[in-house]
């Protein structure tokens, strides 16, 4: 099994992020606070700080690895950047100019900007203005027809991918004069205009979540609420899109663990591995904890077997196997909301990652000994 550590921190966890040395985790236990826990030893966690500033649920947390700043966004339409000063976390309010909830946040690779997706159909790009000593927010108001559920930065610190409940995934340029430097060999002139839409992908009929870039920035992956995952290679003027339908419940978030391998997490409470073969075709490989055997007819989880029994009534002759799901050895009992990498930022392979979910647990997974099982794409 790939799980190294599991701990239940609260009834339910909305989001989480790790400190630069991976010894501390900041999470929101489904309320208005951000709790910071330090790991003392295996399964021993001590709560060090409680950051109380937001008035409503904290929907996104990100912890920058070089500058050691925490950014938190909340349904109260505000965002705070927390800096460690003298043993205490000091908040700085960032006025996002939103009239709806903020849903997700991510620091850019260079950590001089962060992006916030919101229910106001806008994306806020915030950067630090040295002269005025505060964070300024620039809004991308165009294009989105509904809430922005997830944002992801391209390694070049300029391109941003977003997913929305209108089913589309879009890539924008967030070039800001004075903050970003124009790369002479960079792409089209469109890439140097703030808020310019580079690409729009209309692959999904339902809500889209969880977009991520591959380590090189060549491939995008995002999920749709119709149990589909979408892979887009060669993101640019002529992208190659693939839609992969899978058998089980939809995913919520994805993570690239190498250029050709993606882990998806969602309502099945069990991480799924997808990989691209040598010809570039993506497909579902396996669940992370399971042997590679083809799944038999015992595909219902125990929570559904009772419902199915009622649905089919006297007609059902085959007994729905509720024991098989136990043998899968699930770590999470409820939907997994987010998956966060635990390797050094910018490294091509992710060896460790953590997942958190509605069951209040944070699980740390290590892929050290799984290289054989995962195959040569890893």
């Amino acid at each position, binding site marked *: 099994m790939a799980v190294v550590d599991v701990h239940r921190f609260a009834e339910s966890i909305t989001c989480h992020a790790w400190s630069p040395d991976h010894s501390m985790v900041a999470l929101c236990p489904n309320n208005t606070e951000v709790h910071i826990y330090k790991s003392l030893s295996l399964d021993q966690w001590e709560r060090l700080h409680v950051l109380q500033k937001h008035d409503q649920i904290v929907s996104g947390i990100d912890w920058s690895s070089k500058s050691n700043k925490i950014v938190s966004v909340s349904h109260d339409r505000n965002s705070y950047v927390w800096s460690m000063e003298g043993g205490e976390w000091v908040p700085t309010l960032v006025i996002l100019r939103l009239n709806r909830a903020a849903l997700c946040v991510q620091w850019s690779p260079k950590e001089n900007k962060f992006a916030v997706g919101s229910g106001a159909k806008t994306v806020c790009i915030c950067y630090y203005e040295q002269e005025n000593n505060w964070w300024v927010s620039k809004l991308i108001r165009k294009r989105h027809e509904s809430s922005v559920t997830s944002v992801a930065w391209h390694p070049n610190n300029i391109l941003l991918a977003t997913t929305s409940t*209108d*089913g*589309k995934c879009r890539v924008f340029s967030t070039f800001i004069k004075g903050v970003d430097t124009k790369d002479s060999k960079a792409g089209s002139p469109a890439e140097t205009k703030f808020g310019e839409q580079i690409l729009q992908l*209309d692959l*999904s*009929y*339902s809500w889209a979540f969880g977009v991520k870039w591959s380590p090189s920035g060549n491939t995008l992956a995002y999920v*749709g*609420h*119709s*149990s*589909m995952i979408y892979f887009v290679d060669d993101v640019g003027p002529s992208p190659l899109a693939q839609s992969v*339908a*899978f*058998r*089980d*419940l*939809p995913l919520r978030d994805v993570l690239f663990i190498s250029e050709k391998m993606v882990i998806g997490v969602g309502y099945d409470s069990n991480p799924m591995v997808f990989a691209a073969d040598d010809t570039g075709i993506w497909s579902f490989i396996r669940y992370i904890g399971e042997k590679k055997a083809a799944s038999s*007819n015992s*595909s219902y989880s125990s929570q*559904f077997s009772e419902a*199915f029994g009622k*649905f*089919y009534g006297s*007609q*059902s002759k*085959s007994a729905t196997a509720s024991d098989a799901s136990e043998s899968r050895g699930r770590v999470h009992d409820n939907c997994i909301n987010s998956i966060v990498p635990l390797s050094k930022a910018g490294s091509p392979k992710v060896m460790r990652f953590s997942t958190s979910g509605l069951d209040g647990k944070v699980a740390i997974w290590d892929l050290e000994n799984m290289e054989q099982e995962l195959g040569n794409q890893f």
Partner: protein
Amino acid sequence: MAGAAAFVEADNADEIMARIETKSQKIESLLKHYKHVEALKTALEGSPPKTLDERCKSANWIVVRRAIMAIKDIDGMLNALDDEYYDILMKCLYRGLSTGDEPTCEQCLMIHEKLTERAGLGCILRCLSDTTNTV
């Protein structure tokens, strides 16, 4: 919602009705020769009809229902059916269940059980979340 803007009527309604007529005749002859699986495949091909016209959808449904009701060996049928037809079949099954007509519902329910075993819950999800291509 997402695909609605791009959802231009592929052909006009009459062309589609004509196509459904030919489909219906093909299926009748296949059923006479006891080729149930072939009949179902023919019925499912081209559904859902790429139109918002209710008459076309109803006409198409009548054809599909004919093929579904003729199936006796469900396991055999699913064995012979390719994966790509699962999602469309599931949509048709839900349409059948919504009619409330007892023999239709009984047949659709039996096929639903077996299809879910094969295709998984994802198939049901795709059927429920796709509001643009309805059967």
